[in-house]
């Protein structure tokens, strides 16, 4: 019998432990040294892990969807080892316990809302820390990423000095305040009316309404979410789009649709040509940085600045988003982006939503 995790002969495991409280309010005992971490079902977490730890070497297992998201993003460029992390133990929302145990993790990070998974992990005796998603901060991405970072820092045993969470929060709030300051004088009827197109294909137009990340993004940057009546994401019909008639449309990275599809009216059965945003050529694709920018990611301040510029080009012409991106990546990820990489971030390809 070796001495690795789980290898100890029964009853002889004497290693010292420490505790953290996870986002489900559970107190979890962890080994003092955490060397092998597995993320099971929470897709953005590996990129946050990179932010916190400066590398993903300690990540021995991640969900397949996290890996396919990493491919076209900057994460794979900054941390090539992420592409080698084990993914076979998980599919969708399911985990093969024995396969997970073969990875001998010191700690498992799972999606807190997934109660059956929690039960399952507890059986194995591996410490499992729950991270909550939308139920955590009401779509406030700043708060969301901040609490994730705080908890991850505890799990990884980071000291106060090594912590980046506070600096992240400070910069995010700074960006937010700057934007709020400038837009607050705009009367409601003059505000840009925006629509987040979550997905779009021939079968369904899916928009993101309130109680989803879109709402935070749009209100934070002074725009009006035309789909605020809708909770979460939902499919709507063309009639409803006509009724909203938005000034600007954002397309997320969860769909392969690009602005030119709408501008060129290329989707069968959907006539976009009469919609104001299309007429004015104001249709944009979400950038893709360390992770997709629509859900909470550690790129939050960048997303805010980018959105503000698109919503009110005249109000926010005092900074260049390209420069901001380079600066931010240097500061937080210690990575020097090439110009071509910046272009790639701002113009993600169609396949970014595809399996890599």
């Amino acid at each position, binding site marked *: 019998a070796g001495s690795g995790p789980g290898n100890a002969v029964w009853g002889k495991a004497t290693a010292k432990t420490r505790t953290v409280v996870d986002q489900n309010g559970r107190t979890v005992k962890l080994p003092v040294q955490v060397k092998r971490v597995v993320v099971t079902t929470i897709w953005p977490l590996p990129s946050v892990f990179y932010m916190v730890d400066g590398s993903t070497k300690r990540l021995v297992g991640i969900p397949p969807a996290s890996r396919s998201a990493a491919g076209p993003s900057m994460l794979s460029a900054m941390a090539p080892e992420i592409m080698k992390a084990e993914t076979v133990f998980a599919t*969708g929302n399911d985990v093969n316990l024995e396969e997970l145990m073969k990875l001998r993790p010191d700690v498992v990070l799972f999606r807190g809302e997934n109660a059956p998974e929690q039960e399952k992990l507890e059986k194995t005796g591996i410490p499992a820390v729950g991270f909550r998603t939308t139920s955590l901060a009401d779509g406030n991405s700043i708060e969301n990423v901040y609490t994730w970072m705080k908890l991850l820092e505890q799990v990884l045993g980071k000291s106060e000095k090594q912590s980046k969470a506070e600096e992240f929060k400070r910069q995010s709030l700074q960006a937010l305040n700057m934007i709020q300051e400038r837009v607050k004088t705009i009367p409601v009827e003059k505000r840009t009316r925006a629509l987040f197109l979550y*997905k779009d294909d*021939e079968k369904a137009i899916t928009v993101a309404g309130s109680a989803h990340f879109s709402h935070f993004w749009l209100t934070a940057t002074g725009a009006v979410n035309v789909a605020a009546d809708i909770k979460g994401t939902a499919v*709507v019909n063309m009639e409803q789009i006509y009724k909203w008639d938005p000034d600007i449309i954002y397309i997320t990275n*969860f769909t392969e649709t690009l602005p030119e599809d709408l501008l060129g009216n290329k989707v069968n059965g959907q006539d976009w040509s009469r919609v104001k945003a299309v007429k004015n050529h104001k249709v944009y694709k979400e950038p893709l940085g360390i992770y997709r920018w629509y859900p909470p990611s550690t790129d939050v301040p960048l997303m805010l600045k980018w959105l503000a510029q698109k919503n009110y080009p005249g109000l926010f012409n005092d900074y260049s988003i390209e420069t901001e991106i380079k600066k931010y990546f240097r500061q937080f990820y210690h990575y020097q982006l090439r110009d071509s990489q910046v272009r790639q971030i701002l113009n993600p390809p169609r396949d970014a*939503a595809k399996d890599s």
Partner: protein
Amino acid sequence: MDKSTMDHNQVLKVLKRNRIRWLLLALLPVVCFLMSLAIGRYYVAPATVVRILGSHLLPLDITWREFDYSVVCQVRLPRVLLAMLVGAALSIAGASFQGIFGNPLASPDALGVSSGTGFGAALALLLFDRNMIAVQLWALFFGMVAIGLTFLISRLRKGQQVLMLILSGVVVSSFFQAMISLIKYIADPESKLPTITYWLMGSMATASYRDLAVVAGIIAVGAAILLLLRWRINLLSLSEEEAKSMGVNITLLRWTVIGAATLVTAATVSTCGFIGWVGLIIPHAARMLVGSDYRAILPASLLLGATYMLIIDLIARTATASEIPLSILTAVAGAPFFAYLLRKTGGGWG
């Protein structure tokens, strides 16, 4: 003497009541159709709707806004037509299946057609991007493969033909359902999976004239065949020997009905995914309304199904800002009506 005159009067009364019933049944879809065109999330004044529709026949001045025209003609009209077609198709297919199997649990999926078609669509969605024509063709193709498999399995052994068919159908149907699960399992959960899931769930939201063009022909042919065979289906409720001794080629007849019903089912599933309840329940409702003669059940199912689907889809697209999935509405809206019929007639199977 006394008895026979009473009978005569009675017959007349029944005939009259029947005529009114059929008139109502036939008017319902027409009224609902017109109503549907005038209702939607985007308000177009009914008068404008009439003018827009009329402009195709008469040279009218264009007094409506840009959106008005595309809402009525591009968004609503194809969708409403598709809903009617699909409702009619699934109901008549269901009624035919119940007839030839003599089983109240038989539905358009009885022989694996829907799941085969669904599998084809899911596979095409996985393999190709954004090519809906390919999806429809693959879906139709695998619908046919499924029925072919059922046929082959049911022929593995001579015996009780109907039973062999039902059991083969169950197997083929579950097999393709498993295959669908497999595709969902290997599809990328962020991009492909939601599309496949949504597609299979059943929706008319993106109905276009192209969709209509593909299915209308197929459904018309299939439904026409079934309607023409309406009396022959009655003969299948006799014992096999009796039917044979009336010169009926049972096997041929049964497979003609199955073929037509399959065509019709596959066409609808390939256009708008699985739509449950309609094909199983509307035929029962029709039976309770018009009796157990398939000469009446088939047209009644057709009319009732078209109306039902129309109403459901109307609710789906207007009740809230977002589309309500059809699967939520189908049963909820129809269950009380069905329970009422059940109470009034007791099921109507003999």
